[in-house]
């Protein structure tokens, strides 16, 4: 009985949180504003609710004959943007990384040699 009550409470909570996005039928999914929003800002800044909605829009759009290329481009753009920002280390971060490598070298190589 307790499990039944808990299930109902969870169901009510989930449906109040996600009802609009989870169960509503998406009209014209390929023209949904979320696609242009994601294209502009990427998926990272979105909330969980929006991410779920975007996944639904993507699925509905592909089912309606939309091009997968559009969504692949969105992801690729985001990967490339993050890659561009993080491909080189800036300021003190490279020194910090060298310190970690030295610490690991000291532990695994020199420490092991000292034990032997």
């Amino acid at each position, binding site marked *: 009985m307790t499990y039944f009550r808990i299930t109902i409470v969870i169901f009510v909570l989930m449906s109040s949180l996600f009802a609009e996005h989870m169960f509503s039928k998406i009209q014209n999914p390929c023209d949904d504003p979320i696609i242009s929003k994601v294209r502009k800002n990427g998926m990272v800044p979105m909330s969980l609710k929006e991410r779920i909605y975007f996944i639904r829009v993507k699925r509905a759009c592909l089912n309606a004959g939309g091009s997968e290329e559009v969504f692949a481009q969105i992801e690729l753009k985001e990967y490339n943007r*993050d890659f561009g920002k*993080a491909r080189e280390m800036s300021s003190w971060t490279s020194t910090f990384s060298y310190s970690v490598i030295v610490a690991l070298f000291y532990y695994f190589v020199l*420490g092991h040699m000292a034990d032997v």
Partner: protein
Amino acid sequence: MKHQIKSYILFAGIFLASASVMAQPKLAIEIGAGLYEPVLSGFDDNNQFPVAKFWNRNLLTNYGIYYQFFYNARIGYSSYTSWAGGELNNEGGSRPIFFRSISYRMFPIETYFRYKPKIEFNFTLTPIWGRSKIQLNTRLNDSGDDWDILLGIYGNNSVDLATMGSMKSDWLGYSGQLGIRYYIKPYLGLDFKFGFMNNYYSEKKWRLQGNKILGPVYEISKLPIFAFKIVYGLK
């Protein structure tokens, strides 16, 4: 002069505002598992404790949260915990349920760079605030006897207990880890790390309800560690 100061303030204001717009604060959570190989002779040398198995010796559960505070750097909190539980086989006692945890709570600084659009290398240094906890779920009447038997194993005299309690020990340490992360989605990644932990643990620094007591011997001073995590970017 006043005009110049105002200009500097305005310029600084615009610079900070643009930095806060351009910068991307990224908050991420992680869950995962770790592997290590401690020697817990405080338990293994005595057959009263639950039998040592992979899950209660070598496996660590992990969760954490990270915040990207600089271009290639994150700061956060990450906790690795080893769990053990079972019946304490104490002759003369009530065979209470024994529960033991060893937590390695880390406050890492992690720097990283992307080798390829989907592949990241990361470098972590972190202090450790370790804590171990031993708890006995005894029958109320047998509480004192059960604790006396357990503490006697480690060479303690009888301890007067007001109620059921748990014995705890804290220590400090540090860890260095090297990791590789593969992004399945721009906000979802799989992270594999390896590194070491150095813990300054002492079996003489246990406490139970305000009493300083002797605890089990753990050989956890120099340990290699491997971890696998799923990282989810929230924002």
